[in-house]
């Protein structure tokens, strides 16, 4: 039902979702303050951020459950909000999986799944949706007879049954046991991909966001701080805040001169054209430890060790007194007191000491 001929001048139908300048305030609180987002048709995007960043409000505005104060939302090329138009939730052809699943307790599973298919749902379609989530035989069961994971899958089937243009998931895995969570993340991700539907999900779990979404949008204070592939946002944080928010980060003071940044752990090539005092941001897993290392390696003493089985986290005191963390394979085992060589292996991000975003190369040149 994508309105390709609406003549609204918007993007071609391969845009699954497009959000521009979305704003919403609740009284004095500005929950969403100018959020932009693009998701390709069939893609999966995770809205990630600390609590209060506006991700759930954004999701609810996309669903049509909240009315934006400003901005535009287009689903499948059709403007559903903005330009003076507001399409109510029931007309948006969007599927939604709620945090507490919101399954109707007075209907059985099949009735729940078929609810979005109209007054007389086609049992074949219902069965298809249930098969898609692996619960083909559960149609006659009652909601309270199912386990948490089963309920979640029914909620997903219910959202997918009417073949929506877009599926929204609000913290879908937060109510599950840790053991279940991982497996279900994968299953749900597979299901969504198989269904070929555009999906947005809100989460506060970073691992979750990065492992199942092809695109991660990190929100902060009502705006999208950075949006990109998981690798991009993780390995190339655009701002200092991004770097500290997502995963662990180590900050090494240094100097940048003509394409190279020099810090205690060596001189590293950098992409951006910076000069002057900089901070070198590197993840603990990018700090290598060994008996001997390359020429640029620095000496350090192991001051702490935490063993996690598959990896170990070492606290390394550098000659300057700064302690950095290194997270590498669990073996060989190091112990506090050991003297080691430390160097950087892997991508780093370099930011001017005064803070701010990394300038694009094109802008910096000339």
């Amino acid at each position, binding site marked *: 039902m994508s309105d390709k001929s609406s003549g609204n001048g918007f993007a071609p139908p391969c845009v699954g979702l497009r959000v521009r300048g979305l704003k919403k305030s609740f009284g004095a609180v500005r929950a969403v303050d100018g959020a932009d987002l693009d998701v390709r048709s069939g893609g999966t995007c995770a809205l990630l951020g600390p609590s209060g960043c506006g991700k759930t409000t954004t999701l609810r505005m996309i*669903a*049509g*459950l909240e009315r934006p104060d400003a901005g535009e939302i287009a689903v499948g090329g059709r403007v559903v909000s903005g330009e003076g138009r507001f399409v*109510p*939730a*029931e*007309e*948006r*052809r*969007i*599927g*939604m999986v*709620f*945090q*507490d*699943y*919101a*399954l*109707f*307790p*007075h*209907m059985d599973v099949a009735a729940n799944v078929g*609810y*979005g298919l*109209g007054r007389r749902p086609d049992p074949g379609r219902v069965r298809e949706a249930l098969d898609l*989530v*692996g*619960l*083909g*035989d*559960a149609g006659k069961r*009652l*909601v*309270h*007879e*199912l*386990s*948490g*994971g*089963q*309920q979640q899958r029914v909620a997903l089937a*219910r*959202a997918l049954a*009417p073949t929506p243009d877009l599926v929204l998931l609000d913290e879908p895995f937060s*109510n*599950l*046991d840790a053991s*279940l969570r991982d497996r279900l993340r994968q*299953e749900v991700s597979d299901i969504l991909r198989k269904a070929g539907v555009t999906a947005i999900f809100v989460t506060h779990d970073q691992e979750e966001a990065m492992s199942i979404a092809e695109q991660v949008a990190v929100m902060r204070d009502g705006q999208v701080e950075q949006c990109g592939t998981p690798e991009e946002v993780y390995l190339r944080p655009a701002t200092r805040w991004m770097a500290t928010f997502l995963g662990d980060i180590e900050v090494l003071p240094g100097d940048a001169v003509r394409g190279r940044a020099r810090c205690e752990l060596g001189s590293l090539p950098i992409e951006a054209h910076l000069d002057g005092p900089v901070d070198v941001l590197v993840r603990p897993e990018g700090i290598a430890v060994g008996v001997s290392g390359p020429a640029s390696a620095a000496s350090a003493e192991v001051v702490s060790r935490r063993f996690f089985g598959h990896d170990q986290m070492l606290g390394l005191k550098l000659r300057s007194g700064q302690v950095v963390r290194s997270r590498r394979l669990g073996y060989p085992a190091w112990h506090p007191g050991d003297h080691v060589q430390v160097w950087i292996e892997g991508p780093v991000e370099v930011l001017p000491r005064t803070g701010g975003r990394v300038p694009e190369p094109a802008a910096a040149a000339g």
Partner: protein
Amino acid sequence: MATAAEPAGRPPGPVAPARRADGGRASWLMGAKRPPLVLFALGLAVAIAAALPALYLVVVVAGESAAAADAVLTSRSLELVARSLGLAAAVTAGAVAIAVPLAWLTVRSDLPGRRAWATLATLPLVMPSYIAAYMFVAVLRPKGLLQELLAPLGVQELPQIYGFVGAWLVLTLCTYPLVLLPLRAALRRLDPSLEEAARVMGRSPVEVFRTVVLPQLAPAIGGGSVLVALYVLSDFGAVAILRFDSFTREIYIAFGSAQRTEAAALGMVLVVVMLVLFAIYARVRGARALHRSTPGTARPAPPVRLGRWRWPALGLCGGVVAVTLVVPIGVLAYWASKDVASGLDAAAIMLAASNSLFAAAAAAIAAGAAALIVGVLCVRFPGYATRAIERVGYAGYALPGIVVALALVFFGTRVALPLYQTVAMLVFALSIHYLPLAVGPVGGALMQVPPRLEEAARGLGRTPWQVFRTITRPLVTSGVLAGAALVFLHALKELPATLLLAPIGFDTLATDIFRQTTTGFYEAAAIPALILLLIAAPPLYLLNEKGVSSS
């Protein structure tokens, strides 16, 4: 993708409140969990107390089954049962029809002044049905107050309003708050994400209401409906004034002509009807899980904008309040002003008022405590025995006040003579007569307290009593208060038991009013009636704030 191997695990999902398949340990009688002995004994005591009226009927009928059957199985009796049931059904339908829109408007919409409307809409509870009936007659009779008002316009005579139509109108307007209160509480507790899910799936708001909201409200509507139906079946005063032949009149006549056996047999018919009603209600409610499927607080739903529907909505609320409140109070005030002119015994009225207050308050406390015992037994230890305890409690409410009174005369003079015709016995009668009104809200509140909280406390080493004191009690206080308030309101206006069981000289406002109306001097009854309404208003406010639910 494994399905059969899906671990049941222990996710924070729903727990069916009924018996778990506990294997061999589950006792069929008690259910999977056995209640502590003290609690069960207390519950049994409450059940026996509440069952006294029914027991009395059984004792009287015992040994005279032929005469009893003769009395019951006449065509006239059956016709009257049918008439009364018909009235009860019609009133229930009417009460639900009024309560549903009012509840929705005052909880979910942006109707201006909704809290005030909510309180006003429940005020009819304080009006005794016989007062409402005689006001109705006084105003709407062919040559009554309304006709006098309209006489200048040439209206000579209004149509007759007696019989079924009059009884239906009056009783509907008196009893709809019994549905409204639990409905509002249930609406407030609804999880809005279910409605949002339904909307997102493409259903219009009206369809969402019909297919998602209403079914979830069914237990509240059902519970309120049972109370309404039983009230109508046992009502005597209003139907007599409105000249409707009802079944309770049979019972009253039989007792009055010293035909105990026949009267008791007829009373047992009422008990049977009550049990049947209950069975239907339980079936309709089903084995559905009654608490939310996942824990966590429900976000309150944003109010629905009424727009230009605001005016019809205000009209509905205003119309109901005008008819149930403004008109009766206006007429009472008018009569009171005429009566004051002829002299007023203020001291006597104040004494009657304080007596009413005392008896009703004591009954409310007793019923509240008893309801708590029954509630804890039923909700925490569900099983046949505890369910039976709850059901038996309704017997006292389903029977007309005269049966309850005579039952206590019977047992009181034989078993507890020193307490006979003391205030204590009156309070006892009032509390067993109205006990079910308290069980509903208390049970509802208890169900909102997850058993997990109590289990956690037990795990931390507290005894069941300590757990109750420190964990459960604070959480269910609002439910207990609501239940007590309901009992208070009904006990205030009770008549037959007070006439027979109170000590001589213990006049209440209700007996004062009765005395005046028997002579037809309605004006003199106006002031006690107004004071009755005044006393009843504060607990009503409490009810609305704390919220009432049905079990």
